[in-house]
């Protein structure tokens, strides 16, 4: 049976990257607990608009947990306390208590400047991918699926790495503003497969160089990233990236 909840939303307002920003609050009444958190924010925005106020800006797209666009820091946790392995759009009001004040903040990291309110600019991730997160082999016509044999374990592991949706929660959670979990997942998804091996060394070097150039921090293995990753990426990927990178540099 669905219950109804009354909560207060304390949300971050900021006019562009230079603005100092501040919190505002809004009371939401009688929200059914099977409403998604983003739907609750939609309801809040309708109420704000009706009251002649500016709506609250936040990112979202698929709302089914696959695109990586949603990005809110909710009550001190990136994506909020969802069920294990889920994004902000998969957070439901039943996870909150009656009368609770829910604090909503943007990803705060120098690498992700605020565009407006809780919408941040994550093009840095695209630039890292552009630096080497692909293969350039000419594949020609589709091959027989069994022509290149890949151990099941490697295929599964590569798939797990590929499931990183580039949301940036790892950066948001990291006290060092490090993007290593993202970059290592994107390096691993190719490094684990034979198709990715020819360019593995070049890729690791190029992506790490871009990550450093864009000002992301040095990883000190605190594991805050893997604790919040909606896709359950692990720091085993980071160890793999370190290995790939060090090997590549030593081979030069």
């Amino acid at each position, binding site marked *: 049976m669905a219950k109804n909840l009354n909560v207060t939303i304390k949300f971050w307002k900021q006019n562009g990257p230079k603005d100092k920003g501040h919190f505002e609050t809004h009371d939401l009444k009688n929200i059914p607990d099977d409403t998604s958190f983003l739907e609750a924010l939609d309801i809040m925005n309708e109420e704000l608009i009706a009251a002649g106020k500016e709506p609250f800006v936040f990112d979202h797209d698929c709302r089914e947990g696959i695109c990586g666009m949603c990005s809110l820091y909710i009550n001190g946790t990136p994506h909020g306390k969802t069920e294990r392995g889920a994004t902000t759009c998969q957070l439901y009001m039943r996870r909150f208590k009656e009368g609770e004040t829910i604090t909503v903040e943007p990803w705060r990291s120098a690498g992700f400047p605020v565009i407006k309110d809780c919408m941040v600019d994550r093009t840095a991730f695209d630039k890292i991918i552009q630096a080497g997160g692909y293969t350039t082999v000419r594949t020609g016509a589709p091959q027989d699926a069994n022509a290149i044999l890949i151990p099941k374990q490697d295929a599964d592991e590569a798939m797990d790495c590929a499931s990183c949706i580039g949301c940036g929660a790892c950066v948001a959670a990291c006290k060092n503003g490090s993007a290593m979990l993202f970059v290592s997942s994107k390096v691993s998804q190719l490094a684990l497969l034979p198709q990715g091996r020819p360019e593995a060394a070049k890729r690791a070097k190029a992506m790490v160089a871009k990550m450093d150039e864009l000002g992301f921090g040095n990883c*000190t293995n605190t594991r805050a990233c893997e604790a919040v990753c909606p896709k359950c990426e692990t*720091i085993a990927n980071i160890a793999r990236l370190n290995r790939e990178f060090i090997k590549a540099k030593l081979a030069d």
Partner: protein
Amino acid sequence: MWLFNSSIGRKLIMSVTGIALVLFVTFHGCMNVVALISGEAYNTICTLLGSNWYAIAATTGLAALVVIHIIYAFILTVQNRKARGNNKYAVTDKPEKVEWASQNMLVLGIIVVLGLLLHLFNFWYNMMFAEIIGNPMQGGFEPTDGFSYMKQTFGNPIFSCLYIIWLVAIWFHLTHGMWSAMQTLGLSGHVWFNRWKCIGQVWSTIIIALFLLVVLAFWFCPDCVGQCDFKLLPFAVK
């Protein structure tokens, strides 16, 4: 050079200097245990590690490791603060998986440096340095009489307490540092992460326990330490 201008390179410097320091600390811990058994044997080691060129070269190398480790600790911290940006979160919720030590390595390191300075003042200044400058009676004992210096230092409860705080800080630093160093070297993964963590925990606990044992024994039972007859020990130089 990639070691200095890439994030993974800088981490590698931390990791390699850290591991070298762990090995040194391990050696030092084992050496101290000798003092519990035989004061005479301990002083033989002190003589061996006195002001000869090998010992001075090794000490210089060690000092370089410490200095590099500290310099990079600060470089990493400054860069990481900048990467984090100036906007602090109003609410943060620390996940259980995140160890306290991992978030406070610099603070722990600073306590370690302070302890190190005290330690250099207590021992190195009176022993190796006294020998180098040719003023052997600096601290009241022969510079190779490490055993007497230990009795004197740990007989003072203030010094003993400071050393205990120091040891606890090193323990915390190492419980994170040991697996972190392996992770940085890329020698970790789903399976080895848990193994390194366990090895690091056990290793740092044993070493620190050895140090603690020495401090406590010299503090509370100065008359029962180092009493074995040196000549009966298997490694005695006859």
